[in-house]
Each structure stands twice: as structure tokens, then as C-alpha cells.
């Protein structure tokens, strides 16, 4: 990581003379930037990178394939459930599986991740039951997993707010003298938020053990990256005084290597890193969105050629690490998971109306207790008693 830091510093110096690409140069049809860390090409060829030697077992490689297929299947099932009226909305991760699983699997026990609303792959890596995530999008809960126990904070929908929580949490880790690190997730659009910038100021100032993991999926709903930034996002880090690195976000191995290195540096007291995972949102922003209004089909077609699952499958097959039986087995497992998610979602009970009073305070105030009692009495006044 020190070498990376030096490289980033050199890069930053270069950036001083070079005003950076012109507006539009960061557009998604030009993904092959020279400064993109890649360990697995879209064709499934394994590359070495001098700064990021990766040790990964065959079982781990197969595990990544399985993870990504299962999460994609979950995502497809959720989209279908929304269309059938079983979810209020769904934010698809299609295309971003490698970025999320690579980052999620780089975390260790005791580390903490702070997601946005799209990090289903990270939730999976942290062992969160998909049904908890479904409960949020069905509108019956706000998650329901235990953030500290899972090492995974609740989804945050207010863009960027979680970056400050991650930084504060990391400041707590520092005070505890713990050997843990924190991973803050954010989108490309979120980099414009004041709170994200404040988080980076605080993180730098206190050398907090936090890594900012930005999935640049090229859009914030309809707005393309060049409206957010005139420089590649990873270069912003230099202005805050810590390294930024751009990784091929569709390459699960590169994401794993880069995130591991950044988390290790954080754990060792070297402070924050900004990772830009260069990827693409293959689906709509959410099930409420119509991307045909703001992007061309050929762009999506180009990105299909860089699919994160296809390239790992090619690599596994070509190098004889997995056979047809393995791939079939994963498919069967995916179908089973989808069935479990479907049944669990459809059967999810609505919370009772009085649930809105639960946990408003740790110690409920007398006026709120009175409101609750009045509301309960009102509910009970209907035929058949309380709902």
C-alpha cells in the first residue's frame, strides 16, 4: 500500500499539470482508462498487477462465482416481485455484482460496512438474510438486521449521509485501539454531496481507518458522471490528502485486491483511501425509472461485453477450476434461493399500526405513551377489536 501511496502521490503531481480529461471523456463508452487496476480481463484472462498481488484460493474463486450468480438471481427475483406488486420498489444491482462482492469479501470480522440502498451484494457477503433487505423494499420494516452483529449498517437512502457515520465509527475504532477498518459505500452522484466531502475532510484530518468505496456506475438516476465531476472521481482524493485509486469494478479479483489493500492500510493506521470502482448500472435506477429517456441502447450493449460473471466463468472454465456440474449446481442453488426469497416475501406480515411508536425513543416520553394508548384504544374500537 505504501507503494500505492507513492504512486498516487506521483499521479497527483501529474494531475497538477494536467487539467484532466475534457468534459465527457469519462463517459461510459470509454472505460479502458490507463489507470484502471484490472486482474481479470473481460475475456477472462488473468493479469498480474505489480501493486496488487492477489492470493486467492480456487475455492474462493468458485465462491465468488457462486456469490455473484446467487445475488444476481435474488436481484432478478426482487425485480419480478416488484412488478407483481409484492414490493413497493427495488433498486437493482445488476452489473455491479463484482464491485459489491469483491468489496464485501475484503472485509474481515470486526470490520463495519456502511451501505447505500443498492448494496445487496455486500449484504450477502456480510451474511444478512435477503429477506431482511426485502422487508425494507416491501415497506414492512427498515431492515431488521443487527448492524453491529452483522458488521453492516442499515441501508441509508439519504444520499451520502452514511459516509459521515462511517467516518465517526472509524474514529471510534481508533479510540478503542481496535485493529478494524470501516468501508463506506457511495455512488458517483453522492460525491457531489456536502456531507460526503465533509466525511473525507474529517477522515483525512483524523487519519480515520475508513475506506470510501465509490461505485461509479456512470449515472445518478439520469444524470451522467460529467455533471458531477470534471476530473475522474478517484483523483478527488488527492485534494483531501489521501490516496485515490480506480479499479475495474466489473473485475471481482481486482476489486478484492484493491479493497483489501486499502482496508489493510486503514487498519495499520495509514488513514483513508478512496476507491473508484468503475462499473455500470445495467438496469434502471430503480423499478420506477425509465432509462431509455436518458441513455442509448448501444451503451448498454457495450457494457454487456464486460459482464462480471461471464468473465469469471470464462476464467474458471478455461483454467479447469470448475466444470459443468459446478455451474449446474450453482444454478440449482440460485433457483432454490429465489424460491425461498419469493415465499418469504409474499408471506411477510404487515406490521401492526402501533408499530410506528416502537423505538421512537429508548425511553418513551409520557406524551408519546399517551398517544400510543389513545391510538390503541382507537384501533380496538373497530369491529373485531385491535387490528
Amino acid at each position, binding site marked *: 500500500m505504501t507503494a500505492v501511496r507513492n504512486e498516487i502521490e506521483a499521479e497527483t503531481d501529474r494531475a497538477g499539470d494536467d487539467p484532466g480529461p475534457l468534459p465527457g471523456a469519462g463517459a461510459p463508452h470509454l472505460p479502458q482508462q490507463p489507470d484502471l487496476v484490472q486482474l481479470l480481463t473481460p475475456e477472462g484472462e488473468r493479469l498480474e498487477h505489480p501493486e496488487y498481488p492477489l492470493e486467492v484460493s480456487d475455492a474462493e474463486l468458485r465462491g465468488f462465482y457462486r456469490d455473484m450468480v446467487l445475488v444476481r438471481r435474488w436481484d432478478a427475483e426482487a425485480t419480478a416481485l416488484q412488478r407483481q406488486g409484492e414490493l413497493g420498489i427495488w433498486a437493482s444491482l445488476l452489473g455491479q455484482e463484482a464491485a459489491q462482492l469483491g468489496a464485501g469479501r475484503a472485509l474481515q470480522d470486526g470490520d463495519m460496512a456502511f451501505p447505500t440502498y443498492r448494496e445487496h451484494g455486500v449484504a450477502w457477503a456480510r451474511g444478512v438474510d435477503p429477506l431482511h433487505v426485502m422487508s425494507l423494499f416491501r415497506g414492512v420494516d427498515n431492515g431488521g438486521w443487527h448492524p453491529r*452483529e452483522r458488521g453492516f449498517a442499515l441501508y441509508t437512502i439519504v444520499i451520502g449521509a452514511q459516509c459521515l457515520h462511517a*467516518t465517526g465509527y472509524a*474514529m*471510534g475504532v481508533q479510540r478503542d485501539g481496535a485493529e478494524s477498518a470501516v468501508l463506506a459505500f457511495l455512488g458517483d452522484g453522492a460525491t457531489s454531496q456536502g*456531507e460526503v466531502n465533509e466525511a473525507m475532510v474529517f477522515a483525512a484530518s483524523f487519519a480515520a481507518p475508513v475506506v470510501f468505496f465509490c461505485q461509479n456506475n456512470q449515472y445518478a438516476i439520469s444524470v451522467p458522471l460529467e455533471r458531477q465531476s470534471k476530473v475522474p472521481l478517484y483523483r478527488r482524493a488527492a485534494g483531501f490528502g489521501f490516496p485515490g485509486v480506480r479499479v475495474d469494478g466489473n473485475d471481482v479479483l481486482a476489486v478484492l485486491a484493491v479493497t483489501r489493500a486499502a482496508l489493510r492500510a486503514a487498519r495499520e493506521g495509514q488513514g483513508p483511501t478512496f476507491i473508484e470502482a468503475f462499473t455500470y448500472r445495467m438496469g434502471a435506477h430503480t423499478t420506477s425509472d425509465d432509462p431509455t429517456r436518458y441513455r442509448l441502447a448501444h451503451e448498454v450493449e457495450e457494457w454487456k461485453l464486460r459482464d462480471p460473471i461471464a468473465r469469471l466463468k470464462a476464467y474458471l472454465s478455461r483454467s479447469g477450476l470448475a466444470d459443468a456440474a459446478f455451474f449446474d449446481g450453482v444454478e440449482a442453488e440460485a433457483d432454490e434461493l429465489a424460491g425461498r426469497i419469493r415465499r418469504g416475501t409474499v408471506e411477510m406480515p404487515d406490521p401492526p399500526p402501533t408499530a410506528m411508536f*416502537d*423505538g*421512537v425513543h429508548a425511553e418513551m*416520553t409520557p406524551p408519546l405513551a399517551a398517544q400510543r394508548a389513545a391510538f390503541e384504544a382507537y384501533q380496538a374500537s373497530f369491529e373485531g377489536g385491535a387490528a
Partner: protein
Amino acid sequence: MTAELLEASPTRTLTIGKALNEGLRRAMEDDPTVVLMGEDIGRLGGVFRITDGLQKDFGEARVVDTPLAEAGIVGTAVGLAMRGYRPVVEIQFDGFVFPAYNQIVTQVAKLHARSRGTVPMPIVIRIPFGGGIGAVEHHSESPEAYFAHTPGLKVVAVSNPVDAYWGIQQAIACPDPVVFLEPKRRYWDKAPVDTAADPEPLFRARVVRGGDDVTVLAYGPMVKTALQAAEAAAEEGRSLEARRPAHPLAAGPRPGDRLGAPYRPLRRRARGAGDPRSRRGDRRPRDRGLLPLPGGPGAARRRLRRALPAVQARGGLPPRPRPGPGRHRPRDGVLR
């Protein structure tokens, strides 16, 4: 020797500012997870010196001079709270809390509920508030209503050194987020504080002066003003009750709310024409509430002027129209 002295006499005369300082110190001694954060609170001791000397004694990890960014201060406090700390953040002035408004309202207030109680949010947000110090704009505001109308927050104001000393400790010990309003114009008011006493509960209304004719509700810096008004009224034979409501607006008071305290109805008396305190010919018992004082609003203004030299200096209160017929009555079943 100091310790012996302290033990011998736990009662000392403190200003509100010093009482807050001592309360913070004691909370930090009692609980190593208490961390103070804010702008200029370390070396300088805060622009009002409320944290004076604390960084020297507790170190930079526990009394943190933060970068100048309020959302950053409150947002990182959220993360610290998730990690098991009890952050106490200082907003330098009331008018500068708004950059943190998003974090306070969408995150601090909600996280306990959103997480089904698994994410604790014991954050105290200290805000010097109110006017009366001759400051420029943004330094004399009363933002409490914004927070009081947000479920999940507890909003309190202290009015005297005793409440300040205990209140800040109670707010820090509270498992819920507390917006803690400090009456900046009263920071220098003094009173004896018994640091060995049993404190009054923080979140409870209190009658600070008994009275029969009118109840005056006040919190923070206006408690003193209300007491001064009661004094002025007493000279004229009127009896005012001054009451400090429990976190005044936290639950959104509605008509009929008793502001969190067991309500002691004021004595209702039928007053005859001979009663010096009755209005001419009025034989009905007076209801509590908006009771016009004899002499009309002009007289009330004159009385208030005595209690409010600062107001008087600015030319007094603007004239207020007398309530017209039906003005306070429900129309179409809707309270207006």
C-alpha cells in the same frame, strides 16, 4: 485540600456557564465513553468557554476540535454513537445548526427506531440559543421548534445553574438523542449549586413559582423573565404561576395537553364585584388560560416593560390587537 473542601461544602455559587462546565467534567469522569466534539471547544474552551479546561484534563481524543463543518460534527457523532460512545457535540451558535439539520432530523432522530432499537443514539447536541447578547444575525435564534416537531428527539432547555449542572449530566446519561438548549444570555447568571443533592428529573414540568390567577409557561432564558413578571404582578396584587414545561414542544402540544406534568388545576373562585381582583360585574369563575389582565393589553405591556428593560430599550413590545370575537373559537370544527 481542594477535595476536602469540596466534600465539606458541596454547595458552591456557580454561573450557568460554569455549572455546565462542571457538569460536563463530572459526566466525563463518570463515563469514559463521553466524547466532546465541536468547533473551538478544545484549546479555546469554546466561544462561551463552556468546555474551558476540559481538553487539558481529558486530552484531545475526548475533547475534539473538529473541522469547521456542522453536518460533519453531528454525522461523525452518529458513527461514534454506533460504536458505543456518547458524543456531546457543541454547535457554536443557534443559527449554525442548520448545516447539521439533515443529520439531526433524518439520521439522529430516526436511527433508534429504524434499527428496532439495536442502534443506540445517546447523542447530546448542545446549542447556545436565544437572544439578549447584542449579537449580529444568526447568533440570536430560537430553532427549538424545528427539533421539537421531530419524533425521536428530546428537546430541553435549562434556565438556571442548578438545572444546568444536573441537566447536562442527565442529558448525557439519557439513552436518547437530546437537543440541549443553553440560554446564552443567562450564561453569567449565578446561583448556589449543591453538587451532592438529588437532582430533579430533567424531562418533567415544574412549577417554579406558585400563583392563582394566571399560569405563565416559560423555558430557558424566559423563565427568569416570567419570574420577574410574576414579581411585577405581585406588586399589583396579581398572582402568577410560573411553570417550566417538560421539553416544551417535543410532543407537539395540542389543546388540552398538560405539558407532561401532573396537572394541578388552579383554584377556581367565583369572584363577586367586591373582589378587588375581579373585573367589574364579572361573576363567572375564571377559566385558566389566556386571561386578560385588568387594564387591557396596554397595561400588560407596561408591566412587562418593567421586567424587560432590554425590550423597553428597543421601544417596547409592538401593540397587539385585542382578540376579536370568534378569534379563538373553533370554526368548522377546526382550531385556528
